[in-house]
């Protein structure tokens, strides 16, 4: 199912993430940096992971509501949905994979 193109998108997205990290995540190095990373790992990493997971579930729910007809679930005419399409292109592949997994996809929504 992963076409050459979707691999390309994943790569694009990774690049984008990297760039974002570089610009927004300037952590000081040295001992202070180490302690900061350490406490982050101890205390908040689990929480952040959970939040990220919920966030991505929401993202998938959102794409389902706006672009459900891609999976054959017609929800609303696509005229305005098309406007949203460019913004979710990188997520489409993982979204489809997740939604079409064998287990009941409604279960996976939340």
């Amino acid at each position, binding site marked *: 199912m992963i076409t050459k193109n979707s691999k390309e998108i994943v790569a694009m997205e990774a690049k984008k993430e990297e760039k974002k990290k570089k610009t927004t995540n300037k952590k000081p190095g040295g001992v202070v940096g180490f302690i900061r990373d350490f406490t982050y790992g101890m205390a908040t990493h689990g929480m952040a992971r959970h939040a990220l997971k919920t966030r991505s579930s929401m993202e998938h729910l*959102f794409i389902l509501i706006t672009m459900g007809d891609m999976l054959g679930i017609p929800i609303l*005419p696509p005229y305005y949905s098309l406007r949203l399409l460019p913004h979710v292109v990188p997520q489409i592949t993982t979204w489809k994979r997740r939604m079409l997994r064998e287990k009941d996809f409604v279960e996976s929504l939340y």
Partner: protein
Amino acid sequence: MSLADFFKQYPNRRYIMYGGKGGLGKTTFSAATAYYLAKKGRRVLVFSVDPQASLSDIFERDIFGQGNVEIMENLFACEVDADKRIQDYQEEIRKKIMSMYGMKKIPEEIESYIKASSAEPAMEESAIFDAVVDIVVKGDFDYYIYDLVPLGHALYYLSMASIYDAWLEKITKLREQMREYDEAIAVMKREEETEEDQIYNELMYIKDRIGTSSKIMTDIAKTAFFFVLTPEEMTIVDTEKAAQLFARYNVPLSGYVVNRVIDRALLNENIPVYLKNRIEMQAEALKIIEETFGSFVLGTVPEFDSEIKGLEIIRNLAEVMFEEKLQ
């Protein structure tokens, strides 16, 4: 009240629409009203979004897909090419995707979604009403006369607009929730800022477009909606039903205009039985119209002996409709 009185009394009603079953004279009435208002010195745009648009026929000029074409002083006409509009729109989306992600080609699954979208039946209505928003928001005309697509489409869109509204509300809320998560994650990860949510902005844009387009059809201060009907029982029944439906969606119904009335004076002449019967039938129907719509009938227009085409005949029609000599 007559049609002319109506326009005098409600000068703020700048969006004029004629609705009714197909082939009853919506386009001719639109053209004649545009002609009358233009002669009165107002800048008028008469436009059509029907793929079988007949403004080109009536003005005897090919204006399809050519923007606002000047027909005479103050009078402009426009026929929107819905198909082309959809194609342009899809192309715009493709370009946006390619530039956002630096791609040379749209991924297959995305491309097939874009292609499939144009086959959806509601795509055209949505594109049409979006086109109308574009035309109207410019606001550089005194009057916009909307040669409406058949009733079904308009009703469908109005009901769509309310569904769309509820849908947008829900997903906007979801989006806001997602935003909260983004912020919380950023705090936990000690990132200084989160990216602006482009999707949220798009949703607000969509909300605005839908709001504007349904407002055009339902704003009682600015819009006047006239029904065209002919003196035939079937048409009267259908018109009454349609009027009730429109009223439910708050379309400001302003009156009815009866078209194709055969002159009763003909009965005194030597005419075939067929024509006599038709005149009698119309008399019956006119009685029903009077009982049903009463003072909301703003005018009756006789059957013309030739097709309404060209400015000369449009003027004749306008003179009858507005009971005034125009030069």
